[in-house]
């Protein structure tokens, strides 16, 4: 190192200092997120990985058990049943909810419907009421087989009572109805945002060419909205597998009849806080994560192929 280097180095240092001064404050201001993320997300994730290889009951030492938790999980009928429940639940309500959200969004985006703001608010209301607990209890009362209003209404119509919460299949359907009620508005809003991003010239041009509203909807709106639909369905997959409050509170016994409406997250919670099998449920959460990632990726690649096709065409 020659003395001649010194000024250059000093200049470099002051440049660094200046750069730090320029970026230091912004970094300081965004740091709370990263600190909180580290403390409340990154650390727990690492801790749960560490736990999943151990046997621990909240106090005392955690005993190393290697892959035993994962091995036991392979034979845990209740856990796999809960995965199956989530998949069935997804099939029960997500197609219906997505379609309904799409149709409602299109209606509320068209110029033919009046009081658009009112209807939008009304449909979105269940989502912002943030009262999953209240809603679950209300649904429990409404759907009670003997005294609920749902069955009273049906009997008024001459229909025989439905075991809403008392048969394995109806339990899943009732849970699906509750979730759909709560999330329809949210999905509609996403679709609405997507619809408003589609230039009106496209449908106008189609109309000039003689296309009817149904054809415009199927051939122009839905294909252009595909990325938005993929997004909404992906969120619904994750949301369905991680349902917790609803299956916990909708039924007098958590998880519904014979665990038919139990979800993976409900199982994880039960094993942690009711049964104190902390390591085991940590292993459960990792398997649960893996399953969700695989499903979401599969769905993404299956559905998003069409987008590339559209882009290529353009």
């Amino acid at each position, binding site marked *: 190192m020659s003395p001649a280097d010194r000024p250059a180095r000093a200049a470099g240092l002051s440049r660094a200092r200046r750069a730090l*001064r320029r970026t230091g*404050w912004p970094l300081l201001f965004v740091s709370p997120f990263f600190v909180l993320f580290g403390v409340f997300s990154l650390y727990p994730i690492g801790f749960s990985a560490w736990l999943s290889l151990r046997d621990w*009951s*909240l*106090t*005392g030492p955690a005993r190393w058990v290697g892959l035993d938790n994962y091995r*036991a999980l392979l*034979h*845990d*009928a*209740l856990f796999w049943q809960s995965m199956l429940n989530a998949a069935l639940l997804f099939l029960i309500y997500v197609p219906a909810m997505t379609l309904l959200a799409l149709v409602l969004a299109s209606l509320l985006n068209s110029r033919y419907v009046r009081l658009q703001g009112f209807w939008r608010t009304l449909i979105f209301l269940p989502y912002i009421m943030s009262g999953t607990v209240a809603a679950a209890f209300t649904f*429990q*009362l409404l759907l*009670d*087989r*003997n*005294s609920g209003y749902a069955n009273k209404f049906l009997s008024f119509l001459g229909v025989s009572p439905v*075991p809403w*919460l*008392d*048969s*394995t299949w109806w*339990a899943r359907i009732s849970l699906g109805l509750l979730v759909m009620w709560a999330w329809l508005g949210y999905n509609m809003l996403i679709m609405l945002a997507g619809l408003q991003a589609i230039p009106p010239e496209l449908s106008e041009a189609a109309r000039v060419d003689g296309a009817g509203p149904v054809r415009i909807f199927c051939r122009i709106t839905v294909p252009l909205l595909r990325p938005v639909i993929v997004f909404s369905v992906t969120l619904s997959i994750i949301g369905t597998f991680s349902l917790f409050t609803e299956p916990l509170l909708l*039924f*007098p*016994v958590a*998880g*519904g*009849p*014979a*665990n038919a409406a139990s979800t993976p997250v409900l199982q994880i919670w*039960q094993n942690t*806080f*009711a*049964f*104190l*099998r902390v390591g085991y449920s940590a292993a459960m959460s990792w398997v649960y994560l893996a399953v969700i990632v695989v499903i979401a990726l599969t769905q993404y690649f299956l559905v998003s192929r069409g987008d590339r096709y559209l882009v290529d065409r353009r």
Partner: protein
Amino acid sequence: MDGRRTLRRVSRVAVAVTALAALLVLAAGANAAHRTTTLTVWCWTPSDDALKTADAGFAKAHPDITLNYVQIKPQDVYQKLQLDAAAGSGFPDVSCIEDSHLAQFTKLGILADITKQAAPYKKQIQAYKWTQETLNGHVYAFPWDAGPMGLFYRRSVFKSAGINPSSIHTWNDFYKAGLKLKKLGIPIWLQSKSQNDARFFEDLLWQQGLGYVDAKGHVVLDKSPKVLATLQFLGKMWQSGILGDQAEWTDPWYAAITDAKVATLPMAVWMGTFLKSWLAPKTSGDWGVIPLPSWTAKGPHTANDGGSSLAIFKSSSNFNAAWQYVQWHLGRADVQAHMYQQTDIFPSLESAWRSPYMRQADSYYGGEKQRQIFETLAKQIPVAHIYSSDYEQMDSLMSTELQKFALGKETAQQALKNAASAIRSRTGRS
């Protein structure tokens, strides 16, 4: 330059905040040095109301102790305690714990050892209670109430069905009475098929001294012909249609009890509190109590359902005051008798049974001496192995299989076999 000025301002604010915080800490310290002790007690309703009936006397005897009750539901108590155990702090000084969940917490090692303090009471309290308070020879909680079970029945309903309550001795008699009631369209008892919580099934096992495990902790659910026969009997009652299909502790269940849409309640003594206080206060005089129907002609005519204890926490810095509290509220015959009189929470402290109050007629039960009946029954409670440190899990797994059995998805044998193997693999018991 602007940045530097801002920094200076920020640091000045930080210094001010730190100083203020330090002041507050000092103030808090000074407060703690004050001579009164504050005890935090966690309990649920109606048990906290029962404890409070003794507070006036306690305050006179111990003016230096202030009580701070926190009303928490049982499930929330357990959840909070578990999280506190994980965090290592946040415990109250004293908490109510149900006997069904006590073992889980003695095992966690968060309860204070009261072996020495409890020793003088050993002979005064029902023997079966101590087995639940004890781990490896050390006592970690003080016994409060026992849950002797009887058969509460609706007099008017029995009358219109032509049933003489004194004719019900065995479960078979109960079944026959159910058939008579069925003709009136009134279920003899409510047991949900799809939402069954296995509690009644556990009661029936307890009555016969059976349980999930044996005395050594081995799972015996699928090995006892008596357990199988019990489940089959429950199935027979469902099939004959004498049981109403309604989950317990739900609004429709309450309504059925209030409106005489159910004829009997085979439940523990504490059910009286619920009936009298808010479920059916207006039906006073229409209720009666007889011993629980038995499996053999000889009995026993009761089982235990529930029961609770008070535990002091290891972390408490007020152990002596906490023990004074526990001793006053649970260890005194006069206090316990008074509590029972107010709330139907049955003392396991046997000296409290000598109170003349035990032999008084109770107008709510049509002038019956119901407390004497429960006293006789309490002495018959068999030792059974339903509650353990894994109770929550066993009950949950059994409920699932019981629901499948009730819905006709599997036989009684399959249900017991599946429940037993799930319990074995999950709890590591043999």
